[in-house]
């Protein structure tokens, strides 16, 4: 069904393939940039993952203005402001962000500050940043999960209030996203699983949220099919560049889907659990996804039912009565969780990740205030959130 009104934008150039990073010199030149600041974190430097990009840059006409590697797992407004300061002082003319969601979102935050001035906290909001971006931006993900390389959203932690702040603006879309399986083949199984579940959650939520549209649906369903087919293959053979590239593309497609359709209750609860209890985002998504789907089932049954085809395959879909497909889709997600728990130790409850019962009220309150909740097809009360979170504990 075509919505009464929708918007869709994905302007990022996608460069995907084994050794795709070697084209970074061309991409920078095409964008008119020659002094990139590389953003990454210390662990990626130590594991020589960032070195793949830095080595590729060394063989170009570009001169690296610097390497900033002090980005923590949960970035903050202070880190963003510091990156902007380093960018200005280094005389850089582009940002090349190499990392997971935290690194990529930090780059987006820095671009906001560099374009609009002041501090990141002065620019909170949704769709409110206008004007052309002042910084060239190439995003190179090292996980297959966040999809941040093609999203208009960034999540940055407010370390004072212990909440994750969302920023959305089309000006956050990277100019180029490079997917190269050499950057993800070394991911450990549990991180591979949790980031893939993050991507799956992006895809599922984008289909059920109120901004869903025909184009975002296409990306979401393609992403789910790729995850279903290639996540087990990656766990079977972690060095398979073909399967790794497929997962990276799945994460990208899910990112394009949710960037244009948004996410809902699962992300709202996950952001809140991350802010209050430090729960890793991908693992929170994995645990909370079936609970969020179950809550939405009465209003999103048909939409979830459509996803059964991609989640479980054509035979299961055809054998399931139409009225039961929505619930069966939740069952398929639970089956995937169980498989990942058995093969990688991925948690299946919040309790396994250290969430205490007394933290549930704070998580519920923070979830109610999370912007993602506004796009869920059904608005929960505080009491309902408490029940959902207790169910996931």
């Amino acid at each position, binding site marked *: 069904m075509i919505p*009464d009104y929708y918007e869709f934008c994905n302007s990022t150039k996608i460069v995907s393939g084994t050794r795709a990073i070697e084209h970074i010199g061309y991409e920078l030149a095409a964008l008119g940039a020659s002094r990139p600041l590389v953003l990454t974190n210390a662990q990626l430097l130590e594991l020589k993952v960032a070195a793949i990009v830095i080595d590729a840059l060394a063989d170009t006409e570009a001169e690296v203005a610097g390497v900033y590697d002090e980005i923590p797992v949960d970035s903050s407004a202070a880190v963003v402001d510091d990156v902007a300061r380093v960018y200005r002082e280094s005389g850089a003319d582009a940002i090349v962000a190499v990392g997971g969601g935290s690194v990529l979102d930090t780059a987006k935050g820095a671009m906001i500050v560099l374009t609009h001035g002041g501090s990141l906290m002065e620019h909170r909001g*949704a769709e*409110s940043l206008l004007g052309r971006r002042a910084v060239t931006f190439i995003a190179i993900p090292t996980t297959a999960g966040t999809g941040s390389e093609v999203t208009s959203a960034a999540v940055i932690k407010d370390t004072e209030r212990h909440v994750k702040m969302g920023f959305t603006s089309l000006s956050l879309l990277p100019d180029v996203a490079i997917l190269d399986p050499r950057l993800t083949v070394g991911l450990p199984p549990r991180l591979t699983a949790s980031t893939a579940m993050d991507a799956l959650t992006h895809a599922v939520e984008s289909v059920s949220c109120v901004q869903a549209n025909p184009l975002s649906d296409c990306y979401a369903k393609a992403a789910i099919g790729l995850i279903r087919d290639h996540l087990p293959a990656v766990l079977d053979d972690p060095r398979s560049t073909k399967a790794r590239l497929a997962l990276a593309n799945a994460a990208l497609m899910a990112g394009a889907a949710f960037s244009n359709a948004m996410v809902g209750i699962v992300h709202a609860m996950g952001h809140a659990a991350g802010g209050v209890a430090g729960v890793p985002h991908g693992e929170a998504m994995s645990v909370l996804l079936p609970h969020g789907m179950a809550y939405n089932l009465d209003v999103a049954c048909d939409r979830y039912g459509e996803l059964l085809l991609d989640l479980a395959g054509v035979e299961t879909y055809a054998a399931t009565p139409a009225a039961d497909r929505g619930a069966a889709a939740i069952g398929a997600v639970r089956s995937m969780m169980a498989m990942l728990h058995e093969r990688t130790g991925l948690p299946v409850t919040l309790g396994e990740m250290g969430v205490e019962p007394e933290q549930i009220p704070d998580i519920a309150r923070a979830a*109610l205030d999370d912007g993602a909740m506004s796009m869920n097809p059904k608005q929960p009360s505080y009491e309902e959130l408490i029940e959902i979170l207790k169910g996931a504990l």
Partner: protein
Amino acid sequence: MAQTGWKAKRGRKAVAAAVFAVLGRGFVAAARLDERVRAEAASWPEDTVITLRIAPFGPQVSWRKREGVLEYLGGVQVTPSLAVIFKSVDGALPLLVGMKPVLGAFAEHRATVSGDLALAMSFVRCLHIVEGYLFPDLMTRRILPRPAERRAGHLVAYGTLVFRRARLEGASS
């Protein structure tokens, strides 16, 4: 043709200004009548100013929370802590006259938010309660996330529109 369109737009802006005036006082009325609105507003930082505006030139309506009081500021120019800005009067009107849900404005990209999104979520929860007082059930059934719960009837609420300020003491947040 162009002149007709211009006149029609001016008419729509006049309707929006009138709705803003009712909504502005209705928000204060709901705060006087309903402890849920008082609790939400009490949780806002001191000197919070919230503005609803139609881009680029208005009309607009604002409220300020200061020293335990929520005040309706009318359409005066202020520097808001939180601004919900409709991209056009055509985008705003369906929401303002109760034809579309508040959250629908964001779902359909009709409005932008400048400021803390957590504060915006609190403000939207208040608007849902305010709409419950201003609109009949026939309309609220379509635009609110759940059936309206009222602490007083519509007539009392409309009678309370004479006030511009509501004390927030007694909020249970």
